[in-house]
């Protein structure tokens, strides 16, 4: 089964729910400070993080991860309900850190492949805000080739011993557990020798190094594993069947990145020009002689952001109704990457020189910084190149790229220099 579960809901019920959510949020969630908003990623204390506290509040109110089944702490509601919560929550601080990957990526994977014990043990802990998860999937040598993992897990009695390195995990240092893909058989083609594990992050054998991004923030990490022993009970799905699990994980990642996941809570906001309104405001300030050009840009940005919403609704409906295959999430992912880079370019252009050279303390430089990092939107969570492969091969059914490693035993596959 390659799509989400949705239920029919009548409009009246949804209107009622919206009112209910609005009332509750007003009474229970902190309003977003428009001037100097709190950014979920700013707060870096592990145990008593604001994200965990806010997640707990949602849980107590019954508005946490509402698409999850009741028995695991959710509400068994529909994507429509979650969307209402997201809309309303735009004016409030939300525990965004729990949305990706914990609830939207790791969550559905455990729901689908986890043992009942694993589900009982872990899912409620997320929804109550007690545990944050990350993914240990990408590797320094791997790029988009997730199945090319070199990290090894060698069986030793009822344990597996992990050695190797993973990269691009989000805030691993602040998190508790990770879903990790490791190679358990080197004698077979790459897809058939992988296994998915649940790994406790704060383990003596695991070193975590934050990665400094171009703007010097440290959202991502690289991890090094030295003889990390993991109980066999932590295997997710079957041993050597990890790729089945991983491809579902990647599917949910695309959905999350493409705003097509019903498991995310709230919406991420950008430091600078997130909405087109923000751009309009910039134009007001710096417009002047360039009004003609700014109007074209502004109108185009408004076009892209509206069409992006409409497309993502269409894709969700299309997958839900079986009109579109599940990989259609890649359409949203591709559109998002392209429109976001476009927006950051336009924002920089509108800011003018101030985005390039600014007085100490001025905020205009952030526009320049976001511009030089704009490709992140086309890289993170699966590159736009992979999205185009998926669209052409899995939606349009075009022939797959010849892969030199398709049927070769993995230990014979050519690798980076």
């Amino acid at each position: 089964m390659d799509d989400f579960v949705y239920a029919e809901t009548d409009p009246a019920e949804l209107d009622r729910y919206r009112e209910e959510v609005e009332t509750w949020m007003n009474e229970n969630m902190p309003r977003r400070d428009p001037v100097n908003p709190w950014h979920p990623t700013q707060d870096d204390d592990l145990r008593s993080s604001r994200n965990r506290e806010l997640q707990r509040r949602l849980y107590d109110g019954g508005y946490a991860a509402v698409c999850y089944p009741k028995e695991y702490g959710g509400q068994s509601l529909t994507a429509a309900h979650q969307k209402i919560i997201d809309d309303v929550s735009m004016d409030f601080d939300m525990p965004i850190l729990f949305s990706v990957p914990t609830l939207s990526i790791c969550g559905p994977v455990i729901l689908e492949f986890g043992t009942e014990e694993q589900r009982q043990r872990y899912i409620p802990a997320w929804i109550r805000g007690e545990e944050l998860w990350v993914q240990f999937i990408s590797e320094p040598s791997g790029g988009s080739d997730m199945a090319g993992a070199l990290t090894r897990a060698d069986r030793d009695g009822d344990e597996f011993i992990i050695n190797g390195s993973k990269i691009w995990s989000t805030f691993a240092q602040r998190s508790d557990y990770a879903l990790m893909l490791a190679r358990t058989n080197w004698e077979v083609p790459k897809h058939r020798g992988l296994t998915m594990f649940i790994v406790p992050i704060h383990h003596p054998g695991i070193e975590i190094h934050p990665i400094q991004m171009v703007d010097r923030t440290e959202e991502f990490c690289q991890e090094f594993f030295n003889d990390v022993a993991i109980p066999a009970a932590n295997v997710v799905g079957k041993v050597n069947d990890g790729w089945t699990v991983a491809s579902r994980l990647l599917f949910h990642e695309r959905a999350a990145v493409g705003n097509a996941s019903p498991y995310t809570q709230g919406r991420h906001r950008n430091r600078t020009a997130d909405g087109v309104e923000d751009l309009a405001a910039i134009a007001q300030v710096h417009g002047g002689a360039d009004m003609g050009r700014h109007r074209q840009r502004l109108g185009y940005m408004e076009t892209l952001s509206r069409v992006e919403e409409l497309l993502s609704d269409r894709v969700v409906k299309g997958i839900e109704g079986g009109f579109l295959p599940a990989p259609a999430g890649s359409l949203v992912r591709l559109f998002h990457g392209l429109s976001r880079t476009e927006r950051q370019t336009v924002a920089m252009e509108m800011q003018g020189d101030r985005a390039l050279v600014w007085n100490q303390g001025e905020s205009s430089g952030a526009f320049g910084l976001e511009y030089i990092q704009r490709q992140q939107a086309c890289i993170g969570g699966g590159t736009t190149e992979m999205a185009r492969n998926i669209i052409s091969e899995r939606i349009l059914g075009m022939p797959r790229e010849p892969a030199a490693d398709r049927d070769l035993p993995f230990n014979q596959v050519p690798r980076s220099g």
Partner: protein
Amino acid sequence: MAPVRFDLSDDQEFFRETARRFIEAEVPISVVREWHELPDGCPESWWQAAAELGWTSLMVPESLGGGSISGRPIVDLTIVADEMGRGVTPGPFMPTNVVADTLGRSGSPDQQALLEGVLAGEVVLAWAFCEPGGDWTASHITAAAVPSNGGYALTGTKVAVEAGPQAHHLLVTARTAEGLAQFLVPSDAPGVTIAPQESLDLGRRFAEVRLVGVAVGPEALVGAPGAATEADVARQCLLMQLLQCADNAGSSAKVLEFTIEYAFDRYSFGRPLASYQALKHRFADMKLWSEASQAAVDGAADAFADGQDEARMVSVAKSYVGDRSVELMQDCVQMHGGIGVTYEHDLHLYLRRATVNRGLFGTPGDHRVTLSKMMGY
């Protein structure tokens, strides 16, 4: 997998299927090409058959014999436009429905009596709106309606009047002392000269309409001059723009479909074109444009049907679909190579029509300015 709305009711789905089968049976491309030679662009009998399927009744109130499929006539209308785009189907569909909508809403009983003929496909209506060098907004209208013995004398020149050559009646937008006004004028009224124009689109018909002191009675007025008419004109523009977008979404989806087929069938260097990654990635982009265009059209149609923010959403659609549809077709020409720029190949028929839809009633660039102004800039 043709990108149509995913929320069609069974009735709408049946309506769509019927339209598609009707077009495939009656107006395959070979027939479209034959009809290029017809002065009216299509046989009257065929238009009457189309009318029987309800193509001219959707915007007409039930009280006047019309009626929609879903209770959301505008959505139903885009279904037909989408299918006509897929078939580059000729016919005075857009102007007839747009004018009929206004007559149904603002017309006098006598004027509404005309709708019976419209429903039967016997009466074709055209909208004489844009003037030379005009910008497709009411503000540029200079045609004058001067009071003269109890009625008005209309004078002005209108261009790119779709269905002008074959229209029986014209809705003429002009200025009066009381503000903007519209008049329903028989095409053969004295003082009216209708000169067919040439068009990139070989299927539909356009004309320049010259009015020189055309005498009409007060009963020719459609609705009240001033604010009411401004509102009618604005709605007529939005309706035309929405239909243009639906038409282009349909035609570009169709072009993409047969170009993808071509890429599977055509071998180069012993491999099908569809196996070349550089082309696969461009097809992926085109698929994205096509799906997003459909989403934009449906979003605009819904906004229109709900009366919520329709001006913005229609401009968004024109801004997006206008550009993506023709760029998609141009890249499909490229995918076809030499054969794609021959008269014999059908591609240019779609591109011609889509290019005209893109430009009339405002280019994407024009609509971006409009959107920017809506944001107060």
